[in-house]
């Protein structure tokens, strides 16, 4: 069932340095038919992420094994699968937040499994994470929460709070808040926001450092359907504007098909599905949950 396909994507932001461009591998997509039988072109695209033969278990219980996939620049990939199939675990392995048992992970030129702490921090500084529970620091202001999104690139006490932050960082944080439509709430405490507002602030925090890869772990799970739609629209509008590569987990099959260029499906300890969203039906995806 595994069909790999690479979508030609608009060139990404000009802020990427030549050094970075050279440091990442390129993927020559093989010309072969997809599930619909149509032949896909074989563009040469830089690969932001490459996973090969990944395996992870907890206390001897295997979660998944032999998971392999790659993400090219600017792609949006949905990860779907029933509870307990290891979707969140997979994302945490990709960021080096938890160690994988076997396999190789290369993210933006960094060998995640063999990298030093400093190397992992440098890699994460080019990524952004949006979580299901938003994970804002509740007692701090909205602006401080967004300023802290710059800590990977600008470590130290000046980015602990917006009160100490340099003007450039405060302006960048406010600009990110403006993009999510919440600049007027910059001074409000994070625990006094609604669920939708809170998730928008989390998106601003993830975007403020101009990441190359955005990871979203069920970003709408704690929101009502209307707020969830708003957040997904906003998230993908911004991600596409910035040319960011996106990996997101969703239990909402419509979201996976609507916002993902590709869909990866986890089931039965492996990844039996890797296919273009346009070639999939909701019915096929529901099969993963049976």
């Amino acid at each position, binding site marked *: 069932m595994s069909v790999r396909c690479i979508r030609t994507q608009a060139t990404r932001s000009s802020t990427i340095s030549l050094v970075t461009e050279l440091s990442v591998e390129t993927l020559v997509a093989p010309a072969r038919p997809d599930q619909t039988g149509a032949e896909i072109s074989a563009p040469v695209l830089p690969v932001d992420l490459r996973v090969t033969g990944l395996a992870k278990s907890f206390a001897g219980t295997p979660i998944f094994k032999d998971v392999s996939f790659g993400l090219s620049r600017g792609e949006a990939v949905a990860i779907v699968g029933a509870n307990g199939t290891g979707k969140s675990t997979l994302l945490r392995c990709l*960021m080096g*937040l938890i160690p994988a048992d076997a396999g190789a992970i290369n993210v933006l030129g960094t060998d995640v499994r063999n990298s030093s702490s400093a190397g*992992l*921090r*440098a*890699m*994460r*500084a*080019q*990524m*952004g*994470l949006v*979580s299901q*529970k*938003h*994970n*804002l*620091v*509740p*007692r*701090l202001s909205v602006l401080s929460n967004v300023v*802290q*999104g*710059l*800590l*990977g*690139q600008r*470590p*130290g*006490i000046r*980015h*602990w709070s917006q009160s100490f932050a340099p003007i450039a960082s405060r302006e960048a944080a406010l600009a990110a808040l403006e993009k999510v439509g919440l600049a007027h709430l910059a001074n409000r405490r994070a*625990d*006094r926001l609604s669920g939708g507002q809170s998730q928008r602030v*989390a998106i601003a*925090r*993830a975007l403020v*450092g101009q990441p190359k890869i955005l*990871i979203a772990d069920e970003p709408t799970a704690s929101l009502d359907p209307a707020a969830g739609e708003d957040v997904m629209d906003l998230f993908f509008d911004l991600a596409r504007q910035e040319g960011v590569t996106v990996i997101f987990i969703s239990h909402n099959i419509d979201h996976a098909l609507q916002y993902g260029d590709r869909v990866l499906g986890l089931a039965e300890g492996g990844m039996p599905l890797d296919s273009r969203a346009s070639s999939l039906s909701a019915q096929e995806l529901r099969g993963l949950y049976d």
Partner: protein
Amino acid sequence: MTDTSFPMGLPSRYERPSALAFLVYAAAIVIVLWSFAGAGFSIDKVISSPPRFADFIDRAFPPNLDPKVLARLGWKMLETLQIALAGAVIGIILSVPIALLAARGLIAPTWINQIVRTGLGFIRAVPDIAWALVFVVAVGLGPFAGMLAIAIDTIGFCGRFFADDMEAADKGPSESLTATGARKLDVVACATIPAAMPAFISTSLFATEKAVRSSTILGLVGAGGIGIELKVGFDLFDYPTAMTVILMIAVVVISIEYLSGWARTKIIGEQR
């Protein structure tokens, strides 16, 4: 509900203890009785004590309300509060970095966590009055020795609980900041400590209450405060003055408890 619904019948209301559990219960009862014997528990003394207690009350009342005595005791009470507050504040501030080293999975490796936690356990194992005796020897008689005793006692208490609070804090914000590439110290300062702050405040208020209670008796060993007045009152059989001291301590400690409870509600109660 008919019997046919439960062919096996209803389960018994009480479980019969296993032989091992029965032995443990029996051993526990023997240990408690043995402790009573070691503590010199005597029914005769319990029965004969009320008349003696009544005699003490009779001699202690009315309390000594001579303005000169009240003024002297008032200043000593103020000194007691100063010892408690200064010691508690120093102890609370020093507890934060110590707790960072004691908390597992934050900034220090496990072997440092173990060493620091053992040290905090030792500090707590030594009673505050014993620390006061040590500091009287080290820095001489007076309130400074008392303040140091309160500070070290507060470190033992707050260091342990601050570390536990940080370990139990919501890991979500920490993970999100770690995912941005932030360093461990930045993550702790920006996510872990703010998440644990309500617990820190609550623990600090309890530590301050504890410090006020402790500081009232440090004077017994010459470490300043109103305790010395209590000792002199009893030594000279001046029970009315001793009763005044006891009542002052009760009023101050209960007031501090109310104040602490009010502050806790105001500060932490605003959390949503």
